[in-house]
């Protein structure tokens, strides 16, 4: 390593270890947070089953991936998981619609106003879902990615640029960011421009008036679950491709997801996305060890000898929580003003 200040390599290092991971993690959180936002806006409760639902969707992806690989139905270079996502979305949709029919619809029919009933019910669903996933796949972590691991690897990057520090773009990162952008674009187009999307917004804005306009609540709710199933399955699959699958970890994703939603302003889709990136960048920036980065930037005499890590990686969930609490203290409505109506 050189003893002079080296900004380009420092930047390459940051890109590789902070920016790319935070962008892809943020995209995964954003999709999950959008699912929570949709459920909140239309069904009016905070869905505690989100993390486990993501595990459920990913479970279907894993099972189908295994099946496809077993049959040899793969396309070289492309993760098989990507091919089976559409089928997994259908499976998750069926599961969610079934749960809606068995659990949530009743409380809609009797017009329960309390958010808390929805939360309790969703916790019940969370348990059932978590139990099913662990029953079928077990509780231990597993990976299910195949195909080309990198779009370009550190070695290729170094050879191409001649830099000492390499940047690798993992296939999973590339897919995550691309798919998230496409999906979010589709979702916003759908909500802003299509008749059905507008009806959903109308229903969320003023349920009674939506009924008076002839909007069918059951249909709105069903379409919501379909969108939520798609967001949930894709978010779960992308997270799993990136970081591996473990039921407990998925379950705990609830925390950063809720932090994203609340930070952004509950009920606001744009806020959820902004919140997701705030959470992901905070998490990665605070748990990153800056030693190497500082060595590139500082003269030899000032080189640090410790890791220069602000917070141990084991406390990454604490970061979401601290962000959450800070926002609640300073600006309970979130960054972008969300629905301030209280839940009960």
């Amino acid at each position, binding site marked *: 390593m050189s003893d002079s200040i080296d900004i380009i390599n420092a930047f390459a290092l940051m890109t590789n270890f902070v920016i790319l991971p935070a962008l892809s993690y943020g995209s995964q959180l954003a999709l999950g947070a959008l699912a929570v936002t949709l459920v909140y806006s239309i069904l009016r409760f905070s869905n*505690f089953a989100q993390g486990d639902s993501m595990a459920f969707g990913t479970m279907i992806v894993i099972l189908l991936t295994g099946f496809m690989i077993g049959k040899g139905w793969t396309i070289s270079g492309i993760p098989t998981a990507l091919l089976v996502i559409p089928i997994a979305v259908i499976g998750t949709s069926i599961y969610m619609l079934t749960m809606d029919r068995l659990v949530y619809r009743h409380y809609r029919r009797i017009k329960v106003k309390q*958010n808390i009933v929805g939360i309790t019910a969703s*916790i019940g669903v969370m*348990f059932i879902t978590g139990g099913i996933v662990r029953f079928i796949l077990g509780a231990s972590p597993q990976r299910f990615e195949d195909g080309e691991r990198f779009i370009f690897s550190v070695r290729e990057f170094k050879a191409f640029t001649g830099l000492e520090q390499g940047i690798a773009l993992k296939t999973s990162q590339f897919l995550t960011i691309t798919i998230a952008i496409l999906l979010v674009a589709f979702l916003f187009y759908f909500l802003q421009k299509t008749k059905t999307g507008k009806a959903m917004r109308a229903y969320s804005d003023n349920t009674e008036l939506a009924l008076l306009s002839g909007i069918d609540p059951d249909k709105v709710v069903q379409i919501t679950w379909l969108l939520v199933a798609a967001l949930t399955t894709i978010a779960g699959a992308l997270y799993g491709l990136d970081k591996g699958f473990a039921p407990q970890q998925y379950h705990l994703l609830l925390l950063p997801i809720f932090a994203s939603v609340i930070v952004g302003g509950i009920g606001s889709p744009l806020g959820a996305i902004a919140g997701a990136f705030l959470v992901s960048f905070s998490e990665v920036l605070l748990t990153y060890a800056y030693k190497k980065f500082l060595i590139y930037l500082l003269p030899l005499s000032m080189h640090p000898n410790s890791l220069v890590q602000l917070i141990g990686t084991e406390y990454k969930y*604490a970061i979401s929580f601290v962000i959450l609490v800070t926002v609640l*203290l300073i600006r309970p409505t979130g960054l972008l003003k969300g629905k301030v109506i209280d*839940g009960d």
Partner: protein
Amino acid sequence: MINFNNIWESYKTIISFTIMGLVLLFVGLNQSWALVLGIINLSLISAIMALGVNIQWGYAGLFNVGIMGFAALGGVSVVLISQQPVTEAIDAGGLKMLFALVLGAITIVTGVVLNKKGFNKWLIALIVVIGYLFTRHYFSEASDVIEKVDPAITGYLGGFGFPIAFSWIVGGLAAAGAAWWIGKITLSLRADYLAIATLGIAEIILYVIKNEDWFVRGVKNVAGLPRPVPYEVDMQKSEWLLNIVAWIHRSDLALLTQSDQVAQLSEYVRGASVVFVKLCYSGLFVLILVALIVLSNLALNSPWGRKVRAIRDNEVAASAMGKNITRQHLQIFVIGSAIVGIAGALLVTYNGIFIPTSYMPLRFTFLIWVMVILGGSGNNLGSVLGAFIIWFIWIQSGPMGLWAVEMIGSFNQEGNTITDFLEDRVHYLRLVFMGSILLFIMRFAPRGILPEKNKEL
């Protein structure tokens, strides 16, 4: 013609507790008394926990998803209060750790004070970050030193060496403190913020406990905690237990030869000592449970309690009272969490070992919830009944599931892979089962088995 409905209505508390007692008696006669007492003791601890949650949920509609976090605080208190201090570790890094913690506290206080005085936010942030970096520096040095002191046995600071009973109160206070902080932030906001915040704080408490080895040894567990009741080994030497056991089994023993008698008798005494110790615990837990129920009933009938019920039962009056509700909810939340903390301390006392990984947040938090809702939210006795029923089902459904798997396995001779798979995984179905119970009660009997007596209007 006897109307069973009427009988049930007037005596349902007695009937349901009697049935539960008979079931336990049946298990005792058929399986073992030690097993039954184990179930009873854990049911009692669950009942205390459920009581705390019932106070929060049933009295004020507060949704606490962080029960395991508060219980873990109780458990930590047991270690910190009752364990002997580890002098070497304290000599090595105690002062440094204290310095780091004080530095951290000063940083926080400075930040808060400057913020109140309206200083520039960026300046405050800078001060806090610098303070944090220094704190973290000394902190990690201190924890490294402490954790190096005989890590296989200690590697932590130990506790104060006080009597263990004292830790139950401290456990309650610790949980109350955490609850006060969380409640202060979230209770004036939306209902689901409290739920999310308690979920978060519970996770963090557990992460700290698992990762900070200098504190309570992290995942290495703290074993050999002192006991408030006699040890089995001591009991086996006691004369009177021997006499009682000999008297109970006199007809069996009479049939044996002299030498067999001695062997058999010591076998019986060993069993009896286990049962006796468990009975001591049962007595202790019953005492605490009854005291807490009496206290909470007294509180409910005091002027304060009347206000609580008025707010709960009449939303219009409640909203008119505005800010008072937040304060009262805070009181209720703190009291309920304190009881959960006490129960958490009792649990660790009973186990005699502190195992951070045993706090599976949502699993057991959820069990307590099902207990409260099944029993009848708002009704303290209902929570106790719910605790017994749910814990019994939880404990028995494991073996029952395995038994079912074996039955399936016995039909299908070749495909042992399926049986193996099921044996490995069948216990996860308990989650599905419990989730279904919760949803069923919510939907079809939202007031639980023992509904709260008529709410006053």
